[in-house]
């Protein structure tokens, strides 16, 4: 099961037919498995890895360390929910260590990010402090190395 999910995680473009042959299963079984994974929320979506730095799109990414006061009964979840509902927020993690939440956000400009932190994030009740770090360059994301085009340089030998 884990192998199947790993295969799909690495390459979401594989068709049901291809997956069936590669995993020694019937096409119908593959469809059923995927449907079930989607229903159970194990598979949440299918996206494409894009190196936006190779396009004309202007954007900035920032990692924000957020310290918060946990709420009675709900712990960190309620605050987390308020934060992840902002469309600017790309990733959100509850952390151990020096701060509580790591928020990865994307904006068009630094000004836009600054506005988000000051006017939206810092304004949330229970947020004690924020520390914003701008991302200068993305080298690797979800196991994919950025900026390097995969060229088959293998020689014909053997």
């Amino acid at each position, binding site marked *: 099961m884990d*192998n199947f999910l790993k*295969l799909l995680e690495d*390459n979401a*473009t*594989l068709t049901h037919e*291809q997956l069936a*042959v*590669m*995993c*020694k299963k019937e096409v119908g079984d593959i469809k059923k498995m995927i449907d079930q994974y989607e229903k159970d929320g194990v598979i949440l979506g299918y996206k494409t890895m894009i190196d936006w730095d190779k396009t004309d799109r202007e954007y900035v990414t920032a990692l924000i360390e957020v310290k918060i006061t946990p709420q009675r009964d709900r712990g960190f979840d309620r605050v987390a929910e308020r934060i992840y509902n902002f469309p600017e927020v790309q990733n959100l993690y509850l952390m151990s260590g020096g701060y509580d939440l790591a928020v990865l956000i994307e904006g068009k400009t630094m000004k836009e990010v600054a506005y988000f932190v000051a006017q939206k994030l810092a304004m949330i009740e229970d947020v004690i402090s924020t520390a914003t770090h701008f991302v200068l360059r993305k080298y690797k994301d979800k196991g994919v190395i950025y900026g390097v085009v995969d060229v*088959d340089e*293998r*020689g*014909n*030998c*053997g």
Partner: protein
Amino acid sequence: MIDYSSVLSKTVTGLKKSGIRKFFDLLNDESMKDVVGLTVGQPDFVTPWHIREAGIESLQKGKTYYSPNAGFTQLQLEISEYLKRRFDLSYRPEETIVTVGGSEAIDLAIRAVVEPGDEVIVPTPSFVCYAPIVRMCGGVPVILETKMENNFKITADELKSAITDKTKMLVLPYPNNPTGAIMTREELEALTPLLRDTNIVVLSDEIYAEMTYDGEHCSIASLDGMWERTILASGFSKAYAMTGWRLGYLAAPAPLAEQMLKIHQYAIMCAPTTSQFAAVEALKNGDEDIRMMVEEYDRRRRYIYEGLKRIGIDCFEPKGAFYIFPDIRKFGLSSEEFCNRLLYEYRCAIVPGTAFGDSGEGFARISYAYSVKHITEALSRIEAFVKAL
């Protein structure tokens, strides 16, 4: 003016240029840039990072000296433990020699054993190096043509009829390049009565041992009475995706290993030191890398096998290595014609079976050490070609 024809060894000038080289030379042309090839005989994985790092670290620490002739003791120890762990083979570290790729291991084994006039049984289709090395030693390659109806395995009857009083060696190239055939324990056991009470040495080329699907690889050296007459040649290229590091090894009983080491000492001195440090790391911590790569090859193996069947090309289901060897006889073209037309008309490259011996006529070698996307594109070109025939 020097007369090169009189300078050069007649044995060497008499060697035929390898068929695979001839075909690969075609592909190196600039006009072939748009060709989708399934020709490469090496992994499409990069050497795992922790293994590369071990090599880099050795350079950073200035470990740029020679190793002992047979290789670093630590590497010999790791090879010995690996062979025990994976294939239940017992070799003392000093019964191993670290070589420059599996190729040197094969060369040493043949050169240490074969004298002029000796016969060496070479099953084909197989990798291209065995017969030329035998010839360079003055030996006589006796070609044993394996057949698709026997799943490209050697049968006891075939072996029996190939053995003569002059037989000195049997090459056992399994898992096989190019057919993808393997030999199971039972199939190897069927051959051993013909070898056990003889002076025939088996050169077991097990470079693809880790790429065995639907079961475990069995080395003939692990069978009763065979260890003492077997030279095992293997290496790091395929299992750990380390082709460019040029590192292989031999394992053989001491009387054989001592003599092979003499040739290695004079010809090579020692295998590359950086590669040896990397190889220690590979053997210590690389089992999981192998598992991951083999699982991926296995998926592609099933994919390409089913893909060829769907197109209507008959195929023996490969059980090892990363090649598939489709039967193209029904299309009425020779292997070379088939591959050349596929190349020039449909821009897809696969290797004619004849590059691996005359018995490869009617077949072609396809490597599946490629991404699924690449294989899919190649399959669609092959399909278009065969439909137009």
